[in-house]
C-alpha cells in the first residue's frame, strides 16, 4: 500500500491526497480491508472530484482488464470493469459489432462508463451506456457479491447506473453490442448562425445516428450561438478497415496559462467556423476519429496549464431551452471566460436508465473554462442558477464545485439513491454535495 497518493482528475482541479491506492487485479478477490472509505477508480477521466476520495482509499481497477466471454452471434460481451472502451472496440469491431453508446473519448473504462451512465452523440436514438447494460456483478462491503439486472436486484441496478461508483465495486458487466455496417461514418457539417438554426437543424437531423453542434461561446448578441452543426450516419458501403490508430501527438507538459487565452480561443473559433461554409459539406471518416476527436491529442487537458480547468455540462428542459441557453452564453461572453470547446446537443426522449443519470430529455450545453479562482467559480455558480431555475441538471462526472442545493435540484431521486450507497464507499464529490 502506498501513502499520501495524489491522483489528478482530468481537469487537474482539485488536487487532493489519498490515504492509499490499492490495485485490484482479480475479479474473484474480496474487497481490501481499509480504515477509511474506498472508491473505485478507472482511467481518471472524470473532470473533477467524482472519482477522488480525499483522505480515503482508491481501488485502482485498471488490472481488471479481461474479457470473460464474447458471444459473437448475439453480440453480448462480458468483461471486467477496468477494460478501456477503446480496447473493447478493437476486439469487437472486426467481428461487425460495436458499443451502442460511447462518450467523446475511448479512454474510459467499462466501469467508469457505467458508473457515470455516459452518453454520446447518438443519445437521441440510442439513450445512454446504461440502457445497453444487461447485467453486472457488484462487490459490496455489506452484502458481498450481488448480481444486478433490469429484472434482478432492480433497485440496486438502477442505483448503480450513474451511481458514481458509490454503490460498491463493479467487477464485471454484460454489454449488449449492436451491429455496425462498417467502421466508417458519413459526416455532414455546416455552419449555423445561431440557436434558432441549431434547433431547426437538430429537428431536421433527428433521423441521423449522430448529431452534435460546436459553438463559439465568445460570440455575443446577434452572433450568439453561431457555430458548426455536425451529423453523421454509419457508412453502409465502406468495406475497407479504417487506418490503424497512430500514437499521434501529445501535450508533454502543462502549458503556461497565457497560451490558451481569450484571443487564442477567439482566433481558433473563427478559423474553425470559417471551415464550415453555408452548405452541408460531406466527408467519410473513420468512426473512431469522428467519435473521439480529441483522443488523437494525448493529454490535451494540459493546454489549460497547471491551474487546470472546469467543465460545466448542463441539461435544461426543451420547453424554454432557447432562452436559458442564451442566458448562459451571455453570462460566459460577459465574463470573457474563454471556452475552448463548447458543445451543444439535443437529447432524446428516453427515460434515464439510472436514479442519478444525467442525460434526460432536454438540451445539453458543455463549456470548458480555465480555472482562474473565485471569478471562475462565481461565473459557474451563476450558470448553475440558470440551470436550477430551468429545472435542469449539472453533470457530476464533469463537476468539481456544484453546491448541495444544485445537486439536489439536479437529481430528484437523490434520497432514494442514498439508501443504496455502500456504507464503506464514499467520494470527495459525494461528501461535498450530500453532507
Amino acid at each position, binding site marked *: *500500500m502506498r501513502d499520501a497518493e495524489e491522483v489528478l482528475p482530468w481537469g487537474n482541479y482539485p488536487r487532493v491526497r489519498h490515504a492509499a491506492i490499492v490495485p485490484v487485479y482479480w475479479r474473484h478477490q474480496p474487497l481490501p480491508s481499509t480504515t477509511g472509505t474506498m472508491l473505485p477508480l478507472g482511467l481518471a477521466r472524470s473532470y473533477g472530484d467524482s472519482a477522488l476520495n480525499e483522505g480515503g482509499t482508491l481501488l485502482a481497477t485498471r*488490472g481488471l482488464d479481461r474479457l470473460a466471454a464474447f458471444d459473437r452471434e448475439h453480440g453480448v460481451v462480458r468483461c471486467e470493469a477496468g477494460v478501456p472502451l477503446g480496447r473493447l472496440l478493437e476486439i469487437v469491431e472486426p467481428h461487425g459489432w460495436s458499443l451502442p453508446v460511447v462518450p467523446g473519448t475511448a479512454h474510459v473504462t467499462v466501469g467508469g462508463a457505467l458508473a457515470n451512465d455516459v452518453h454520446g452523440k447518438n443519445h437521441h436514438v440510442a439513450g445512454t451506456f446504461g440502457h445497453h447494460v444487461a447485467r453486472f456483478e457488484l462487490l459490496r462491503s455489506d452484502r458481498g457479491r450481488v448480481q444486478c439486472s433490469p429484472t434482478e436486484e432492480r433497485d440496486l441496478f438502477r442505483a448503480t447506473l450513474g451511481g458514481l461508483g458509490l454503490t460498491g465495486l463493479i467487477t464485471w458487466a454484460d454489454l449488449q453490442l449492436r451491429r455496425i455496417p462498417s467502421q466508417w461514418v458519413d459526416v455532414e457539417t455546416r455552419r449555423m448562425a445561431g440557436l434558432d438554426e441549431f434547433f431547426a437543424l437538430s429537428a431536421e437531423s433527428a433521423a441521423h445516428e449522430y448529431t452534435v453542434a460546436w459553438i463559439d461561446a465568445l460570440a455575443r448578441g446577434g452572433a450568439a450561438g453561431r457555430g458548426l452543426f455536425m451529423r453523421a450516419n454509419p457508412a453502409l458501403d465502406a468495406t475497407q478497415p479504417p487506418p490503424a490508430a497512430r500514437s499521434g501527438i501529445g501535450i508533454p507538459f502543462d502549458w503556461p496559462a497565457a497560451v490558451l487565452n481569450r484571443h487564442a480561443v477567439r482566433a481558433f473559433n473563427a478559423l474553425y467556423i470559417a471551415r464550415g461554409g453555408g452548405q452541408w459539406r460531406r466527408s467519410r471518416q473513420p468512426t473512431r476519429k469522428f467519435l473521439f476527436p480529441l483522443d488523437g491529442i494525448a493529454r490535451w487537458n494540459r493546454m489549460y496549464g497547471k491551474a487546470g480547468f472546469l467543465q460545466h455540462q448542463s441539461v435544461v428542459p426543451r420547453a424554454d431551452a432557447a432562452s436559458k441557453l442564451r442566458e448562459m452564453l451571455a453570462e460566459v461572453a460577459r465574463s470573457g471566460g474563454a471556452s475552448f470547446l463548447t458543445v451543444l446537443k439535443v437529447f432524446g426522449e428516453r427515460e434515464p436508465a439510472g436514479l442519478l443519470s444525467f442525460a434526460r430529455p432536454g438540451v445539453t450545453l458543455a463549456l470548458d473554462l480555465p480555472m482562474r479562482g473565485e471569478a471562475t467559480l462565481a461565473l459557474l455558480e451563476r450558470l448553475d442558477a440558470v440551470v436550477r431555475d430551468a429545472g435542469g441538471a449539472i453533470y457530476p462526472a464533469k463537476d468539481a464545485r456544484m453546491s448541495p442545493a444544485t445537486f439536489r435540484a439536479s437529481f430528484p431521486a437523490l434520497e432514494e439513491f442514498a439508501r443504496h450507497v455502500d456504507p464503506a464507499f464514499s467520494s470527495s464529490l459525494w461528501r461535498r454535495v450530500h453532507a
Partner: protein
Amino acid sequence: MKPERIVIFGATSAIAQAVARRLASRGARLHLVARDPDKLEAVRADLAARGAAVTTSLADLDVVERHEALVAEAFETLGGLDAALLAQGTLPDQAACERSFDRTLAEWRTNFIAPASLCARLADRFEAQGAGVIAAISSVAGDRGRRSNYVYGTAKGALSTFLQGLRGRLDSTGVRVVTIKPGFVDTPMTASFRKGALWATPDQVAAGIVAALDHGRGEVYLPRFWWAIMFVIRHLPERLFLKLRI
C-alpha cells in the same frame, strides 16, 4: 520462423498475460500453466473471448517432480511445441528471508530451481527435435547482488548463469535460449512500490518478449535502456557500489 505453438509457465503473471494476448492476436496456439485455478480460468476465458485457441494445466511449479509430465503434456496438447516462456516467480520479502533461511530456500526453489528444472527438460526435447525457443524471465536484479534484495538477485543471477550455459550447450543445434531481463515493471508483484520514470507497463515488456520469442538471442534487457544502466551498475568498483546503499 515465428513460433505458433507456445507453452507459458506462470501464465497468470501480468507480463505473461500481456504476452499471451499479443501471441493470441496473431493466431498462436497457447497452453497455459499456473497454480491458482480462479486466476488461470480468468486468463483462459479472456484469451478465448479474444478468439485464441487456449488450453490449460493446473500445477504448482515448485513441485519439480511434476515437470517432466507437464512438459510432455504441453507437447501432446499442442501437437508439438515451438517455444516455451517461463514467467513464474515471486518477489521475496528480503527482511523475512534474512530472518529465516528456510524461507530463503523456498524462494530459491520458486525463482531458480523450478525454472531451471523446466528449462533442462525443455532443452532435451528441443535438442532432440532440432528446433525450439526457450525464453525465461530473469531480472536485472540478478546482475549484481544488492543489499535490498539479494535473495531474489541470487536466484535470478543463478538462473541467468544457467541459461547462459544452456545457450552454449545448444549453440548450433537449432534451439534458441533467450534470457529476458526486465527492469521495473508495474505489476501485482510490485504493487507496493512507488512508481517513477523508469517503470514500464507489462505490455511494453510483452512487446519485447514477443520479439525475443521470434528472433531474440542471448540476453535481452527490457526496456532496452536497462542494458546501459546495468552496464554501469556492474562495472562500479565495489567500494563505490557499497556507498550507493541500494
